[in-house]
């Protein structure tokens, strides 16, 4: 049995400091985990800004190379993927969903072009009809249709719709893994749960595994199967999402959970009254 995604002692160093005081900072520090190829799951990576979660996402997408350790997908080392054909074969299996739906589409490019380009490149859909069919099928999966999207630009649609289109585009190559970096943090509250629920449907119906990167413990709890909590590049706690988030054991995880404001005025105001000073 091979793993879909496997991280062995993955570390990423970034140079920091000025010209004279070159040091390096560990953005990601010795991270290990694996996703099984047989059982699709939603795997949450939870952390605050500077925890290294976005760097980790870039490495999984092959946009950054680990400084040490190995990150392999389907048994191949992602850092060793060279050349256009190999790179495109990899991209067909691993697709991203970005944070800001208003930023993730060029305001001057029609939205359907992204869908058609994806179908053309990764499905080999050479004629217009095949591209449109692939785009429409993917849009239907996320509750939209090509008729609603055709010819539109990003400023004409809401953040929730754009994020659905982003998911639809990622689905076109029939990927095995979707890496979603804060996919709902810029989406309006009344539309947010539709995106979150969509990820669950994709896992259950299309058998796609999803890396869900977030700072929001509550949605991580709501949809994910497993979770890792990161602090300053290190994984400090990991395991079954419900167990870890209901009963965290590490001081940082406990503090993080303690700072989550529940939608209940009495409890929430008690939390901010009992604030601890954090630098």
């Amino acid at each position, binding site marked *: 049995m091979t793993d879909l995604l496997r991280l062995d002692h993955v570390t990423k160093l970034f140079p920091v400091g000025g010209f004279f005081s070159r040091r390096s900072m560990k953005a990601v520090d010795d991270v290990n985990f694996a996703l099984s190829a047989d059982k699709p799951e939603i795997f949450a990576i939870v952390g605050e800004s500077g925890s290294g979660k976005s760097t980790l996402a870039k490495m999984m*997408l092959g*946009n950054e190379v680990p400084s040490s350790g190995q990150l392999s997908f389907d048994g191949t080392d992602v850092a060793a993927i060279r050349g256009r054909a190999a790179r*495109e074969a990899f*991209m067909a299996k691993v*697709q*991203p969903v*970005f*944070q*800001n739906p208003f*930023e*993730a*589409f*060029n305001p*001057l*490019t029609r939205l359907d072009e*992204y*869908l058609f*380009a*994806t179908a*053309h*490149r*990764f499905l080999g859909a050479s004629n217009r009809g095949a591209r449109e069919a692939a785009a429409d099928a993917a849009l239907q999966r996320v509750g939209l249709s090509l008729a609603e999207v055709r010819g539109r630009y990003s400023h004409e649609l809401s953040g929730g719709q754009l994020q659905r289109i*982003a998911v639809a*585009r*990622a689905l076109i190559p029939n990927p095995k893994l979707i890496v979603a970096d804060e996919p709902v943090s810029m989406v309006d509250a009344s539309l947010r749960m539709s995106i979150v629920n969509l990820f669950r449907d994709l896992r259950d119906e299309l058998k796609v595994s999803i890396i869900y990167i977030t700072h929001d413990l509550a949605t991580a709890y709501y949809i994910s199967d497993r979770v890792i909590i990161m602090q300053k590049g290190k994984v400090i706690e990991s395991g079954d999402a419900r167990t870890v988030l209901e009963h965290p054991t590490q001081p940082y995880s406990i503090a993080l959970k303690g700072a989550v404001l529940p939608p209940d005025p009495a409890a929430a105001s008690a939390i901010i009254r009992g604030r601890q000073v954090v630098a």
Partner: protein
Amino acid sequence: MKILIDLLRYNREFLVGAIFLAVILALVVASFFAPYDEMMTYVVIPDMPPSAEYWLGTNSRGQDLFWQLAASMRNTLMFGVVVALVSRVIAITVGLVSGYLGGRVDQVIMAINDTLNALPNIPILLLLVFVLRDQMSWPILAVTAALLGWQHDSRLIRSVALSLRNREFTRQAVFSGMRTGKILFREHLPYVMPIVFYTTMNNLIWAIGLEVTLSILGFSDINRPTIGGMIYWANAHSAMVAGIWWWIAVPMVFVVILFLGLFMLAMSVNEYIDPRSRLARMGA
């Protein structure tokens, strides 16, 4: 269209620049209806001062200065436009590619870029003139000037491209399987167009200045009328000493009009596309 009307109405620099350029363009258009071949000499009475018959007078070579000026303007502008266009193509390509690829490739391209930028322009052109001698023609000169005139602008374009490279929509395009060329020219080019637009104006002014300088010194095809060429011939015939002042004055006045026109247009367009001035216009 509305922008054009707005600019004409509210921006005095733009209005003056547009009028000046309109005068120059009228001359260029007129040059195609010239009664004499511009290369011919002794077609009219030499050394006539400006009059009703010869609006701008005639020179010692027996040419009507009005028609000489018209042909010179056409040739000089043509030179400037060719230089500007060729150097724009280079600047855009180098800037977008260098900024998009980033990293090691970017460092190498920018090192070459800066080396070329540091080369002195005039000595290189003079060297070329001496080497080529009789084979020297204006297209060769234009291409050479274009090769010397893009480095600064490609650096400006690169700085914008560098910031576009990490934007989410670029990554989305990559994961949509769009090829690099398409990303550069479909997705990124619109963002650098404002820079391209106003550097074109500056480049045009620089190229014309270069042409005038070289021609005055006689380092170009002197039989082909250009603004610099007119001044060269006036000097060669000691026009000032001989009292043929209009021979010198006409090209000088019109080259100043051309420069002012281009400069004012560049300035007003520059101001118009600057986001800070946009905010100010909105009353912020």
